């Protein structure tokens, strides 16, 4: 699978250029919607190949955090660095072109297109063919990488199906494939396992664990089991703030975390 994703990418060059910078470095990031504070003074540092789980109840600010990092909504204050580069004021497409990727909790797919064409669209987005007026030929390189991604997320059988006809679980897999297009350096997975059956869940874990080891990610996950199996570090969020950070074992054993999760204090 490594070979598949590395084909034609410049990851090693980019890593060389950025040296030892962290993949993500958030300093004092806050996000206000009017008077409502969705994120308050967030500091997070994630190493390039690190796999981090973000836990927290509904309304803890997890998806808002993703929206600030990916640029869907800009942060109100604070700074965000991506592999050393300050991307705080960048529009989303500039962040994506630098190797950041994200998936959406509620699938934002092109339901009238086939699986392959959705992935192909994602592949063109991060290539120079964005403005191409020429239709892809039989041996188109981008189409070939789209075909590869179909295999990575185990959707070979459904690749010519219209997305609207896919099962929910397959749509979640397609979301992941679209985030893997081009040469991703760091990925934000927004609750990829939500609403999946146990079988689909283990397939998802298999896909995530099977990603190339240099590819770091942050995964928002309610399900402790999934989070702890794919992540090596955990950040707990609560009411828009960082509540706890540590290894999965530390978080699980933490009495405050247990009180928060089991005490029913928050939904």
């Amino acid at each position, binding site marked *: 699978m490594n070979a598949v994703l590395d084909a034609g990418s410049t990851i090693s060059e980019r890593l060389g250029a950025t040296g030892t910078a962290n993949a993500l470095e958030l300093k004092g990031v806050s996000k206000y919607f009017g008077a409502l504070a969705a994120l308050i003074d967030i500091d997070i540092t994630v190493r390039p190949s690190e796999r981090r789980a973000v836990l927290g109840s509904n309304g803890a600010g997890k998806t808002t955090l993703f929206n600030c990092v*990916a*640029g*869907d909504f800009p942060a109100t204050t604070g700074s965000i660095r991506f592999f050393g580069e300050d991307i705080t004021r960048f*529009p*989303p*497409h500039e962040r*994506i*072109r630098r190797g950041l990727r*994200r998936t*959406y909790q509620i699938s*934002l*797919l*092109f*339901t*009238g*297109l*086939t699986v*392959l*064409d959705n992935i*192909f*669209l*994602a592949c*063109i*987005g*991060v290539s120079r*063919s*964005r*403005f*191409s*007026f*020429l*239709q*892809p*030929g*039989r041996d188109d390189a981008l*189409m070939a990488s789209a075909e590869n991604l179909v295999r990575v997320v185990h959707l070979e059988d459904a690749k*010519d199906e*219209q997305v*609207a006809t896919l099962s929910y679980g397959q749509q979640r897999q397609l979301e992941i494939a*679209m985030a893997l*297009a*081009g040469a991703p350096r760091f990925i934000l997975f927004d609750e990829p396992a939500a609403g999946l059956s146990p079988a689909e869940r283990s397939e998802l874990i298999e896909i995530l664990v099977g990603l190339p080891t240099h590819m770091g990610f942050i995964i928002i996950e309610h399900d402790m089991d999934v989070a702890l199996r794919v992540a090596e570090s955990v950040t707990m969020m609560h009411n828009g703030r960082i509540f706890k950070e540590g290894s999965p074992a530390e978080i699980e054993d933490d009495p405050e975390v247990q009180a928060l999760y089991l005490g029913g204090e928050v939904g």
Partner: protein
Amino acid sequence: MSIFDPAETSLAAPSDGRSWLERVPVAYWVVGLILLIMPAIAGDFMLFQIFGWTFILGLIALGLMFLGGYGGMVSLAQMSIAGVGGYMVAIFGVSAIDTISLGWPWYVAIPIALIIAMLFGTLTGWLAVRTEGIYTIMITLAIAAAFFYFARQNYVMFNGFSGFNGVLPPMLFGVDWRGAAAFYYLTLFWAALGYLVVLYISRAPFGLALQGVRDNPRRMSALGYNVTAHRVAAYTFASLLAAIGGILLTWQSAQISPGTAGIGPAIDILVIAVIGGMRHPVGPFIGAFIYVILKTYAIDALVTLGLSGERFQLLIGIAFLSIVFWSPDGIIGLWDRLREDRKRDPLTGRGGEEP
């Protein structure tokens, strides 16, 4: 949300092994043949006035269909861009107003005209893409109105109210391109080329991404697309179609004046695109044909019925309203529904959607 037609927009290379020539639908051969032999059947008025005008207006409206149908942006500036194309050919090329016209040869004047019209269209788009829906219509209408009044009041470059006359196509290959049959083939060529290019681009990365931007701009941004740049580029391409149409329109009447690109004609282009349908590039040409027929024969029809011929605009308005009322997606939508109804099982009423 799924306005993509999967059968038509699938980008995977066709797997049935037929060459592209064999995959051209029968309807294309039939329509193409009829259009090619038309000069043998139709009279000069029909060729020059009805079909020539249809192809020109269809080409200008095709740009609007591209913006509206694939990009979700409705611009009323298409006719102004066509006007810029026409004016620039008159200013840089040859016209009867030789105090202003520079008289440069056609192979210099036409490219300059196209480039200036595209710059004008790109600038219009650059302003318009910051807005959505009704505000896009307002801002492009404002640009159309501004261009009209500017051209009417500027005598140094645009020769004010009277504009330019004697603007003729070049005598290329010894053919008088304003002759009925020659002009018919000239406009047919550009209309057909425009149609095929739009159809082709709709399935190329640029067109597909434009449709993605229309359906889900936020997602496209998260896939690395610069949504604003993509929209502006769509305006540039639509301007090229309008500019070609504008030059042909100027040659047809041998003159260009502010009225050519007035507010009325600007709205007419929208009417043409809506009547025909914005979902497929054939729509604008169907719309243009209906518009030209109504505009040409409405007076005669009214007089025949013993009514006052001055009311022809009313007849056009009623025709427009009834088409929009019965089929919001124009004649194409009407056609699609009829075809679906025919496939429906008369007893169960099912099966209409199946291919």
